[in-house]
């Protein structure tokens, strides 16, 4: 897109303002990165600047002291389980809403739309008591089910809006060849939908990786906690050890940063398509 012509003096002032805001966004992250490789001794004299000596041992120390091997595995389990379950149910529903349009399916769509805007504070207490009753508290499967429900409306609408643009002729041709509805789904719709599957998968993964409120409420046993709540506890446990704190934070940011580098456009388009809480 070419946008209005600007005089060159204006362009320079544009850049100056934009650079200031970019620094406001990026510098705090740079400080975190610096601190993660700074020796704890140096914090007193040099709290904000780059380290004089790079110390990667902060990471190994944090990894061991925080038992991050287990914590990472907990988080990965939650992410993988939620992405798989949520994608499975959302793909089916998105396909049905886009191509099958059963009578009355509008009710489901409206229900899911309302579901997106219900504040968690309305249902979290009864859900907690229900989970306690059926012994899903402090289990990963319990949290995976919750994350699936939280993200399914968004994923369903994203998938529906993608599948609705797949040409009807493909489905009609397959049907004339004798394919049943399940075959239409598995053989025609799914192979054509990998871009939206990837986008939805990435957004669900990010949401689960970062989620705090439900992880805090439904997992109280240390051994089952994911990254987000462990990091919160870590901030109290090693209150003045900023090297360890920052190193653990970087470990949680790193996977997000790497995936963001690889899939910038998918993340941005997926997250701004509306409906996901940030």
């Amino acid at each position: 897109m070419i946008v209005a012509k600007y005089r060159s003096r204006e362009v320079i002032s544009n850049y100056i303002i934009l650079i200031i805001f970019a620094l406001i966004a990026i510098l705090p992250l740079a400080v975190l990165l610096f601190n993660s490789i700074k020796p704890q001794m140096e914090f007193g004299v040099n709290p904000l600047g780059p380290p004089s000596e790079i110390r990667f041992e902060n990471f190994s120390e944090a990894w061991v002291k925080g038992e991050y091997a287990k914590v990472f595995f907990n988080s990965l389990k939650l992410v993988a389980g939620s992405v798989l379950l949520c994608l499975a149910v959302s793909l089916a529903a998105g396909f049905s809403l886009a191509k099958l349009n059963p009578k009355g399916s509008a009710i489901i769509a409206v229900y899911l739309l309302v579901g997106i805007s219900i504040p968690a504070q309305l249902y979290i207490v009864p859900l907690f008591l229900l989970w306690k009753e059926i012994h899903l508290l402090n289990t990963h499967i319990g949290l995976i089910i919750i994350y699936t429900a939280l993200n399914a409306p968004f994923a369903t609408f994203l998938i529906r809006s993608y599948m609705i643009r797949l040409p009807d002729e493909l489905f009609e041709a397959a049907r004339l060849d004798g394919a049943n509805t399940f075959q239409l789904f598995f053989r025609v719709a799914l192979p054509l939908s990998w871009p939206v599957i990837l986008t939805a998968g990435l957004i669900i993964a990010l949401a689960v990786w970062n989620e705090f409120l439900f992880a805090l409420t439904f997992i109280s046993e240390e051994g089952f906690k994911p990254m987000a709540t462990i990091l919160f506890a870590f901030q109290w446990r090693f209150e003045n050890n900023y090297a360890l704190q920052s190193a653990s934070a970087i470990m949680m940011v790193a996977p997000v940063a790497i995936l963001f580098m690889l899939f910038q456009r998918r993340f941005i388009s997926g997250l701004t398509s509306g409906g996901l809480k940030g």
Partner: protein
Amino acid sequence: MKIFSNKNFVAWYFVFPVAFIHLFVIGIPSLASLALCLTDWRGLGEINYIGFENFIELFDDRYLKKAIINNVIWTIAFLTVPVGIALTCAYLLTGIKRGQMFFRLAFFFPYMLASVINCQIWKYLFHPIHGLGGFFERIGWDFLAVSPFTMKSTSLFAVAFVDGWHFWGFLVVIYLTGMYQVDNHLYEAADIEGATKFQKFRYITLPMIRPVFVFSIMIIIIWSVPVFDYVYILTGGGPAYSSEVIANYMYSQAFERFDVGYSSAIGTLMFFYVMIIVALFGLFRKAGWDI
């Protein structure tokens, strides 16, 4: 498509899993909460129907009042500062050729980070000894050498600042998608007329991006209601309830005092408020507001 219409029951198989999980986790507990708000249940034992007593108590609860006021301040703060900065940045971004993608990624990246991470970063930066506080102390600005999270007068704004710092890049991207759709000829015509940068923004850009703009206003109002993470992590609502918000207050009523009926009443209040906002924007759209 007619070819599928006789396969109705099969089509329902496909929506059933989503509907079931969502009802199980969100739908039914929500209905339960809407019923429990009329009881004095504490999670165990008998459930007594007490009518609207919880709500009468709610309107007398001065901590809740404080929390509601803080949520209103929070909403107004988010409707002005991040929106203003994001509009400016998005508009300036459309006026440059090189580095557009870099700025977009730089602005957006904090939005991808977990609340715990953002809170940790800013807790450190605002630390009175290690962070910027120490820096200000060294140059003699002692009044800035305290953590704003620990002062009654600033705690709410400090927390809102951290959340806003993480959020505004999202707005930039939303506004940019709207601004890219504006026809360039409009700007060219304005250039010939000798319009200033601000006039072009006010009379071309802003009216043209109205749908995106209204959408952003709506989600800010809705998302300002259940704000929880940042308050809980940074201040826990303190000091002395100065940064208390509804969601955090509800959480302490539910999981520290185990007052199920009362916390359900707070949840019910939040739910109806959000539904009214959604309905209002729906009405505006029906009234031909083009949003």
